[in-house]
């Protein structure tokens, strides 16, 4: 249970541009356990997205290694799902055609996988909308569709980069709750970048606080609520919640 599904070792990233170098990440080390939800917060522009892009294999790193299930990975791995701020749904495809895009691209559009996708659609209340187009869906439904598209390739770990920040407050709370329960049910590990302290506390088992650019790990906090059936909504009422909030707020503030 406590084996590490993801390990980052000495990750450093320096962007090269015409007008100079930008060091974005400075020697990042992080272990994520199987099934764990870990949030990453830090000042704006510190390198959070860069870190996720490196794990997803979309960006090269200068030094360091990424291990998935104990094996070093290079480039894009089919075990890692990636969700961005915009849902990226293609408006010329139906919802069904959208959620199977990953299967199509990876060339694994088999009967079983399509059945799996259909089950996900049913389970998460999008099946009736499978022949609709993205513009006909609400923001929350679109984000759920984007999640199913990512889950269709059965990733072991999901990276979320401000995945909810484009939604209005109400929808966001609901989608966060949905995504939380979906990921928990499917037993997927999540690494979540957010600029919202409350969101990070409500979703995660641990919160990683990054320093200003170049990002270093400043601190890692265990988030524990003394309650059963914790959800991103009910934990907000616990006294520990505001305690954590103050703690994280101060830590970001001193930094920024």
């Amino acid at each position, binding site marked *: 249970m406590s084996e590490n599904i993801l390990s980052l070792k000495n990750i450093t990233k320096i962007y090269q541009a015409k007008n100079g170098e930008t060091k974005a990440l400075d020697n990042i080390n992080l272990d994520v356990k199987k099934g764990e939800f870990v949030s990453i917060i830090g000042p704006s522009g510190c390198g959070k997205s860069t870190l996720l892009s490196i794990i*997803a294999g*979309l960006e090269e790193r200068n030094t360091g290694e990424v291990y998935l299930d104990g094996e070093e990975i290079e*480039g*894009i791995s*089919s075990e*890692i*799902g*990636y969700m*961005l*701020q*915009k849902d*990226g749904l*293609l408006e*010329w495809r139906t919802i069904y055609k959208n959620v199977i*895009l*990953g299967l*199509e*691209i*990876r060339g694994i559009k088999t009967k079983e996988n399509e059945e799996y996708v259909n089950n996900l659609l049913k389970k998460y209340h999008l099946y009736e909308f499978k022949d609709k*187009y993205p513009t006909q869906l609400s923001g929350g439904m679109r984000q759920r569709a984007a999640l199913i598209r990512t889950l269709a*390739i059965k990733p072991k770990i999901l990276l979320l980069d401000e995945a909810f920040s484009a939604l209005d407050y109400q929808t966001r709370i609901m989608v966060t709750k949905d995504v939380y329960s979906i990921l928990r049910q499917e037993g997927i590990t999540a690494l979540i970048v957010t600029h919202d302290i409350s969101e990070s506390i409500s979703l995660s088992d641990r919160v990683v606080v990054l320093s200003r650019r170049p990002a270093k790990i400043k601190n890692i906090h265990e988030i524990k609520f003394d309650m059963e059936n914790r959800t991103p909504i009910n934990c907000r009422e616990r006294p520990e919640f505001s305690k954590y909030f103050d703690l994280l707020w101060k830590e970001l503030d001193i930094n920024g």
Partner: protein
Amino acid sequence: MDNKNISEDRKKYLRKIRINKITVLITQIFVLIAFIILWEVLAEAKVINSFITSSPSRILDTFMNIKSNNLMMHLWVTAYETIIGFLAGTILGIIIAIIIWWSEFLSKVLEPFLVVLNSLPKTALGPIIIIWVGAGTPAIIVMAIAISLIVTVLDISNGFVNTDKEKIKMAKSFNATKWQLLTKIVIPSNISTFINTLKVNIGLSLVGVITGEFLVSKAGLGYLIVYGGQVFQLDLVMTSVIILGILAAIMYQSVVILEKIILREKK
């Protein structure tokens, strides 16, 4: 959304829109008819010299004699050259734009050349084209291609480059190949760019064809216009111009219809 119970206000609003539309159309027809009548009356009354302005009745006569002056043949030649030039220019332009999108290096290398070629008046190439491919239909088609090609390349490349980065990133996270990015994301994202290019290219190909026909002077509406001008047959010139206008409108409308079909398919 629910068609059955449309409110009174909605009905009023819809009626207002329809009335507005009809009024505009009627006025347009009226302006056109008034213009034709005025032209005819002034020509009859010899206020204007119908030898240099022609007149609606003389244009109609020319139309009636369509067989004797071979108008149909010339119309067909122009239409045929325009369609070939349009298709070739557009398809070639799209292929070049795809190659440029594919290779960043090539795109950097070609950029200054494209910019210079774009601002160069392509009609200046006319004499060179005629010497190279001979004075005939091929030269006219090459002219039409020369005029529409560079704009097509630039517009479509621009559309390709501006494809939503997040969608590209999303597809890349599934390990999409460059070909998959092109066919699944970039091209479908740019349907409206393609349609706009088609609309622009219809006009440009006609310009190229008419210019080519002026220079080559063998057949086509462009040739008729030049010929009619030289022998002071303004009836023929005017008739050719009007037919040209109708041809341009029909071709443009075909693109509009194509657009509607594509958009309907998407919905």
